[in-house]
């Protein structure tokens, strides 16, 4: 069971905790231990930064061939979201009619079930997005 591998990322998966390099101001999601731009200048200068959870769709696809975990939800909208703070991430857009998904749609993050490791395994929760309107 990949319990620890997901538990370790709870802060980011539940609360969109990113990192911010105080040397150059750049944000990273998921959080990093040093800034990919400043490199050594950023050591000891990284801080936690909570994303607000709002952004817009940068691109999307309606997925018909799904992984086992998402069989129940196909076809589903998978999108890359450009968060208002500038960082981009990848997640499902739910509570949205397939035909309403479009580039530029404003969305906000919610907590949803991502997967479970079998009927006797841990349940993984994380971010998905719903239309803001």
């Amino acid at each position: 069971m990949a319990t620890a591998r997901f538990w370790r990322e709870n802060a980011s998966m539940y609360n969109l905790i990113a990192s911010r390099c105080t040397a150059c101001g750049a944000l990273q999601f998921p959080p990093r231990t040093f800034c990919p731009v400043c490199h050594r200048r950023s050591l000891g200068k990284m801080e936690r930064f909570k994303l607000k959870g709002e952004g817009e769709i940068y691109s999307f696809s309606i997925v018909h061939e799904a992984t086992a975990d998402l069989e129940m939800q196909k076809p589903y909208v998978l999108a890359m979201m450009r968060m208002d703070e500038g960082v981009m991430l990848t997640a499902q857009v739910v509570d949205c009619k397939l035909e309403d998904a479009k580039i530029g749609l404003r969305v906000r993050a919610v907590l949803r079930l991502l997967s479970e490791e079998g009927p006797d395994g841990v349940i993984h929760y994380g971010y998905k997005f719903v239309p803001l309107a």
Partner: protein
Amino acid sequence: MREVAIIGIGDTKFGELWDMSFRQIGIQAGLAAVHDAKLRAEDIDALYVGNMSAGRFIEQEHVAALIADYSGMARDFTPATRVEAAGASGGLALRQGYMAVASGMHDIVVVGGAEKMTDVPDGLSNDIQNSAADRQWECTFGATFPSLHAMIARRYMHQYGATREQIAQVAVKNHKHGSLNPKAQFQKEITLDTVLKAPMVAEPLGMFDCAPNSDGAAAVVLCSMEKARNYTDVPIKILASAQASDTLALHGRPDICTFRATQAAAQRAFKQARLEPKHIHLAEVHDNFTISELLAVEDLGFFAKGSGGKATADGQTLIGGQVAVNTSGGLKARGDPIGATGVAQVVELVTQLRGQAGKRQVADAKYGLAQNVGGTGGTVVVHILGVA
């Protein structure tokens, strides 16, 4: 650094090779290449094997040792190394072999690539391929490997006004080329309509926009240029071997319609070969998805960004066009046994440059370029070959 030549090539047919195991396909290609180079086992200094995921496909790691053993090289305790970079495993293995010979470390090196994908059910095969992306931050959240490319396609259409039809033309063209290649997995031409009406995988990409699951292996023999003519009358020189990396996750890029690693690797390769894109009229690029070929021909510098779709629709990348792209049939029609693909691309280029490509021969082919991609462009390897 000395010049390196390819003195032998070999490959299996690509497809669902039910009767052949991983080790069988590996040695079939390897033996063919060694035979083509008229070598004996004791002549070989080292073996490099490109393979993405034997550990999950056939529950076997340590595959370089396996191939060395079953191809008889364990007798001489020949060093064997497995190289992995998802879809770029083959091209990267070639690069390692090239560096070994160019540096003087080894004189004769065999580079092979092999993948046995059909011993697992489709669902598992898809999941294994998903690990070329960012498992923790893309796949966990619902991304599949095709869906990432589908998002590229949608953004590409949005940014450049390219049409769905233009993207689909890549598959039509590659099947046309594949119909001329007796080793291709698919040897039937298809119509644009077939591509457009195919079952959806991840919109806008359908079944015919995606390369198949395949079994297969390919191999080449490398030798220093100065000794090459001892083995072959038609040595093909590796004019450039270049590589670049980019973010693992697609969402880490500022623009998803450009593979910066292709641009960087191409720039490095052209510089090493002292050539420019306009000199290349033959290329094997990584069309695991139709959209990937459009990005490739643009990022390699053959066509302006955003115009790859039109160029394809206009026939510029057909045999006889401005640059014949994927004369083998590409990943789409030739097949895509992941670790083998990068080596198979080079096998095709060598075949063309030797003038042995039969019905799919590109006239007066002087140079050839191979572009091999790992993941959504996290690794790109570019080789440029030329007639010696």
